[in-house]
């Protein structure tokens, strides 16, 4: 495990074939802008041996070719030195070209089966939960987990729920909440988030995600409870 503190970021190893640069401790648009800008920088000007990049809310992960890195004189430290010098370069924050997606949602019922439990555990009535969830305009902080899964933030603090203790099967369009995040499952998959609603909004086009990091999302409640 390698830890480096400098200019407000930390670098840690993610196993022996990836490193993660963490730019902050919280979910906020400024940190995420930082992640996206550095992601573009590493994408446009790749480092030798780096095979894949995974941006997230507050971090950027570099997956590398272990054979290549292990043969360097200093092993992984050679790569980390290069990354650190890249992070010294000024970054270019991108002009805001985000798209707004208005997503219709049916809350509760068969395809939003955790809504009642969330309401009971939080002691907030169903209508208020829906209002709190549908009120903000969310930002797409990252894509990940499975193709086209968009992580949205920031959820109202009053709706913070832990993940389920074990992953459950999900259907496409399921809208879940976990921690300060909300998100939409684009395809059948196991998942640990609390499902409060469902949408038919298209999330994939030929297997590629429709929502992009930096886009905005507004949920439009479609049903009366």
């Amino acid at each position, binding site marked *: *495990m*390698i830890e480096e503190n400098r200019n407000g970021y930390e670098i*840690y*190893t*993610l*196993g*022996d*074939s*990836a490193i*993660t640069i*963490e730019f902050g401790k*919280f*979910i906020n648009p400024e940190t995420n802008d930082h992640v996206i800008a550095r*992601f573009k920088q590493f*994408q446009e000007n790749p480092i030798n041996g780096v*095979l*894949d*990049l*995974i*941006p*997230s*809310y*507050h*971090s950027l*992960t570099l*997956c590398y070719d*272990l*054979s290549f*890195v*292990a*043969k360097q004189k200093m*092993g*992984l430290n050679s790569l980390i030195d290069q990354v650190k010098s890249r992070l010294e370069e000024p970054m270019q924050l991108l002009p805001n070209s985000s798209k707004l997606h208005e997503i219709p949602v049916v809350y509760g019922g068969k395809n939003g089966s955790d809504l009642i439990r969330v309401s009971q555990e939080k002691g907030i009535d169903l209508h208020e939960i829906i209002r709190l969830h549908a009120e903000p305009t969310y930002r797409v902080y*990252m*894509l*990940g*987990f*499975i*193709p*086209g*899964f968009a*992580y949205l933030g920031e959820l109202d603090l009053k709706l*913070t729920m*832990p*993940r*389920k*203790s*074990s*992953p459950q099967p999900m259907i496409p369009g399921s809208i879940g909440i*976990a*921690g*300060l*995040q909300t998100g939409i499952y684009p395809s059948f*998959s*196991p998942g*640990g988030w609390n499902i409060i609603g469902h949408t038919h909004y298209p999330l994939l086009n030929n*297997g*590629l*995600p429709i929502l992009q990091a930096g886009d905005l999302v507004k949920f439009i409640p479609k049903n009366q409870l």
Partner: protein
Amino acid sequence: MSLIIHKVGILDTIQHFGMKGLQSKGIRPGGVMDQFSASIANALVGNKLNEDLLEIHFPACEIIFTKSCLISIVGANFTAKLNEKYLPMNRPILIPTNGKLQFVAPKSGRIVYIAIQGGLLGQGRLIKNSDIEFKKKPKLTTTSLHIFPWSADVDWRKYSPEIHVIQGREWERLNEESQRKFCCKPFKLSHHADRMGYRLQHDPFHTRTKEEIISSAVNFGTIQLLPSGQTIVLMADHQTTGGYPRIAHVISADLSKLAQKSPGEDVVFHLTDQETAEKEWIAQQKHIRQIQNISQLKLDEFFQKNSNQL
């Protein structure tokens, strides 16, 4: 038409070696579960080490070769038979036209690879009666089965419950007792095990904090701690990101060994460091390349003697 899937198995695919560069869109790299066996299978038939090949679980599919070709069988031992004759593992084998390949009994391991000289066209799940084409015309054909007299050493540090891991970002969340138990105590592999992840069986681990973490990247070999205190090791078809604490990561050199473990088998985790992980990986790759070099020499020699028909 070069080979036909006569009967389908439980989970058989034409597998690549991981598709890198798309994880920023949430598209997982996938690829072979046991890179060591798959690379050696390719080396034995003179392929590049990362050529696409068949990855087969048990109960396995039945394959009819409508064209003669050179193959190798490496990984789990499922007792391979060709037209009722037992086939050895870890050797080049020339399959005659209309040879029917079956796997009749699982003896050891979990996943077997069949490499075909020149590789295969297509990708993904094998379905009944699908025709699969060879990428290249076979160099040598035969009318009767021919088993080559050399075999690859695949026992290289393979059979032991020890799996080496590097501490994860959230390792410190485990309390002292759980950290002690995690290292060095044997766990059984659960029946919940597939290409996405292998779950382990143990008493729940306890953490110092229940604080939720912000989702970020995971890796092949990442060991996640579920809120129930149970653990799962993410395998080849893992998701790109996750929000469960990452307590440790299996080193790349030990992923193949872990992939071949069956439900009920013991796993013992040992903590190691990046430097050792790099050394182990280099040693493993060197072993594979040696097998590749020797195989190539032997095959060239053989092809020179027997021009195109045996």
